[in-house]
């Protein structure tokens, strides 16, 4: 047993420990065994590799954006190029990175294990969804190479339908295809969570990670098709001039935005809810305590999902929707913010009387809580119709959504990757350097995006390749921060790859966590469990864990 007071890590004796064989990685070899797999864990790894690839492409584009904005003039690239760069940055980051980030990797890997199933309900659909994702991704890259697209990720009509000559149709089709990948992932999760739970795994014994994914999946299934039809209409408009979004023919361009945001607002919750699930697991594990107010946290996920469908028009406050609609949507936006606040405070109180340690996942989780609070509160600034007038379409929004998406979800993703890395690979990541990376990203992040709030208040519009000189100072800070941030993101890639070979053997349950996924070997077997698990305790029951360990010791000794 370890007696170190600063960590809960409990590793097997490194001299004798081996990675258990067989496991899901060693079971079969060869590329085809990966490309044709039905194993949710292998698909998760396929996703992990592909989204990391797209993240770095998106990140490189972000680097270009920041370099261009170093000086007030459009000197690094033409405005046209700049427009293509931020459009592709947005599209790649959102549709090809953040939407599938936690769900398609960690969710895919863990949901069946957490509920005690052998696989997702529909393994082939799961694989299909990865292929759709790749098809969409490659198509998007193809569009980018062959001229790019410069509509902004929001595809605002009639700009996208009539006034640009770039690859709108190809990119639209890419998003359409990637969208179906996300629909199938969500569908698979819902079915799995409903139908594949192990005996004794009642709804209120599910880990909060599963609840969060359930809520996000509802949004994927019900929201994404509306995006699909909106994009189909844009493609038809471009190809045939059907006039539905064309003001010259009597169409209403705002209709497109209604359909687009009907998906894309819920999509922001698709992007945050799975991250919130990760945070619940991490905070609980590293404070050795059941999450404070389990039911409230579970239901707040569902509440976010349901209310999430009622607020989409807050992206259109000044766009010409009726003033009455503004009132209604502004009010509902305020309501949807409340469940997030509940979660934050519940997590904070989970720490109360805990026994806290500060491993990397926990550091990221703390980062999440602070940054998401800032990002979320500034969302409320935008949700209040009056202040939105001044702040909309400025860098304030850019800062808002990077705080929630990068400071929130990306931090949560990294927390989750570190947390479950030992489960996925069987090896630990190096703790010290990863703690350093967490701190570096936190600092870099704030330096990058906090100045953007000020820029926004000053009125600097978003999507500007050049800007008045008085905004330069803050932009330079922001660019400097982005460099640090880039390093912060490069580090994990390096040391995680390193750890694949040299990391310490982790054993089944290095964190002494309670989830079912920790009660089996790491990396797990293809079938996850040797015996069908029976859930006979509540979620996050650390006392059960202790008694379990005591039993093992007794039977071993």
């Amino acid at each position, binding site marked *: 047993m370890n007696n170190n007071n600063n960590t809960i890590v409990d590793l097997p004796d490194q001299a004798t420990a081996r990675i258990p064989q067989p496991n899901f990685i060693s079971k079969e070899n060869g590329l085809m065994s990966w490309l044709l797999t039905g194993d949710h864990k292998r698909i998760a790894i396929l996703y992990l590799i592909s989204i990391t690839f797209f993240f770095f492409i998106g990140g490189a584009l972000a680097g270009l954006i920041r370099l261009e904005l170093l000086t007030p003039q459009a000197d690094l690239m033409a405005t046209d190029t700049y427009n293509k760069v931020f459009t592709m940055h947005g599209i790649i980051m959102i549709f090809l990175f953040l939407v599938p980030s936690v769900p398609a990797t960690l969710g895919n890997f863990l949901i069946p294990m957490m509920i005690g199933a052998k696989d997702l309900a529909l393994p082939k659909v799961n694989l299909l969804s990865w292929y759709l994702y790749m098809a969409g991704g490659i198509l998007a890259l193809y569009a980018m190479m062959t001229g790019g697209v410069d509509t902004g990720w929001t595809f605002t009509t009639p700009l996208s339908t009539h006034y640009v000559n770039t690859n709108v149709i190809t990119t639209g089709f890419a998003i359409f295809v990637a969208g179906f990948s996300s629909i199938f992932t969500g569908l698979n999760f819902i079915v799995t969570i409903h139908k594949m739970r192990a005996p004794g795994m009642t709804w209120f014994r599910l880990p909060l990670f599963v609840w969060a994914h359930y809520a996000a999946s509802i949004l994927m299934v019900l929201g994404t098709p509306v995006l699909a039809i909106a994009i189909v209409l844009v493609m038809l408009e471009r190809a045939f001039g059907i006039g539905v979004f064309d003001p010259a023919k009597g169409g209403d361009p705002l209709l497109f935005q209604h359909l687009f945001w009907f998906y894309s607002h819920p999509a922001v919750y698709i992007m945050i809810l799975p991250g919130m699930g990760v945070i619940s697991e991490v905070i609980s594990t590293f404070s050795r305590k059941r999450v404070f107010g389990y039911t409230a946290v579970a239901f707040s996920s569902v509440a976010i999902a349901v209310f999430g469908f009622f607020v989409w028009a807050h992206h259109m406050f000044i766009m010409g929707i009726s003033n009455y609609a503004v009132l209604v949507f502004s009010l509902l936006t305020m309501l949807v913010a409340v469940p997030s606040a509940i979660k934050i405070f519940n997590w904070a109180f989970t720490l109360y009387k805990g026994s806290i340690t500060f491993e990397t996942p926990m550091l990221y989780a703390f980062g999440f809580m602070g940054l998401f609070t800032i990002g979320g509160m500034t969302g409320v600034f935008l949700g209040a119709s009056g202040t939105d007038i001044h702040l909309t379409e400025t860098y304030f929004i850019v800062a808002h959504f990077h705080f929630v998406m990068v400071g929130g979800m990306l931090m949560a993703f990294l927390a989750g990757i570190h947390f479950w890395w030992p489960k996925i690979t069987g090896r630990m990541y190096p703790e010290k350097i990863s703690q350093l990376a967490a701190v570096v990203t936190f600092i870099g992040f704030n330096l990058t995006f906090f100045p953007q709030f000020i820029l926004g208040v000053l*009125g600097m519009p978003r999507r500007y390749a050049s800007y008045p000189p008085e905004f330069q100072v803050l932009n330079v800070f922001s660019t400097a921060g982005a460099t640090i941030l880039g390093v912060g993101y490069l580090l994990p890639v390096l040391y995680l790859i390193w750890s694949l070979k040299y990391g310490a053997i982790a054993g089944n349950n290095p964190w002494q966590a309670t989830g079912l996924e920790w009660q089996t070997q790491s990396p797990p077997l293809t079938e996850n469990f040797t015996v069908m698990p029976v859930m006979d305790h509540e979620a996050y029951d650390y006392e059960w864990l202790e008694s379990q360990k005591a039993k093992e010791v007794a039977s071993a000794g």
Partner: protein
Amino acid sequence: MSHISPTIWQFLVKWLTNFALFPPEASKIAPQMDALFFFMVLVSLIGLTAVVLLVVSFSILYSKKRHPVAVQIEGSTLLEATWTIIPLGLFMVMFVWGALIYFRVYTPPANAMNIYVVGKQWMWKAEHPGGQHEINSLHVPVGHAVQLTLISEDVFHSFSIPAFRVKREAIPGRYTTVWFEATTPGTYHLFCTQYCGTEHSHMIGDVVVLSEEDYRKWLASSTSGNSLAQNGERLFASLSCAACHNARPDARGPSLANVYGSRLALSTGGTVIADDAYLRESILNPSQHITQGYAPIMPTYQGQVSEEGVIALVEYIRHLDSDYRVQQTTNTTDLLPESEGKAAPAAQAPARNGTVKP
């Protein structure tokens, strides 16, 4: 300081003189908006401090070193209710306060002077009633309510004046309005904030706030000779609108005098207030709303008049309540249109009821 290289020094000086942290408050609404803004900042800071304080203090108090065994706690309905209700209450305050400001920004007072703004890729064209025409700049007098009626010729643009805290989308095919009252003479940024294609970031300009005197001078020096309504009259004649819209008893179309701001009965049974948007629709999509008692014979002028042309026509019809020439001269030279009594009908019109008096 001497050991800093002069180039860097110059650079720093230039940098820091251009450095700003908060935009000027140059309109009447700006302080009100900022009050709400700072309220929100305050609430956010309190919220953030609360969260950080909880996290940090618990981390210290209950770190494994100090507190090796966790105490399992289920939750607390009372506490959870607290942090549901308090944020909800605060958010509701923000909602109501925000809605009030939204209401103010988008409800022009009755006596506001109207300037038309047309956005197109990639410039702003302002049409003053006196016929002054400017591109990528807007001259307005200090201390007068100015209403902008915006429209776009192509894609969405957004007319943003950060120093005034106002912004409104220019939409293709539809008028939108916003108003402000500048309080400090000076030159302020004008941005297009809605992404509108390649040169979006060059669709910028200046809003020049002039003292009354300077404004008068500016009006006089930059008029093109013809007022907007006069242009409208020309168009009215050349498009032979008068063939139907004349005051003769056998006229096929309704008389347009005094039509602006009145409530019209439609053939479908409803009524509608003839505002700018309605006049525009009547010219481009006449069959959309047929006035009671008339046949849908008016041809559409879509494709035959530019947005500026439509604006001129609308401006002309707006002023058809009396001899427009007389008004035009006053309009150009006088800053207070309502003092001539000419805005009075508009002020009584139902459309203007319920506006806030600033």
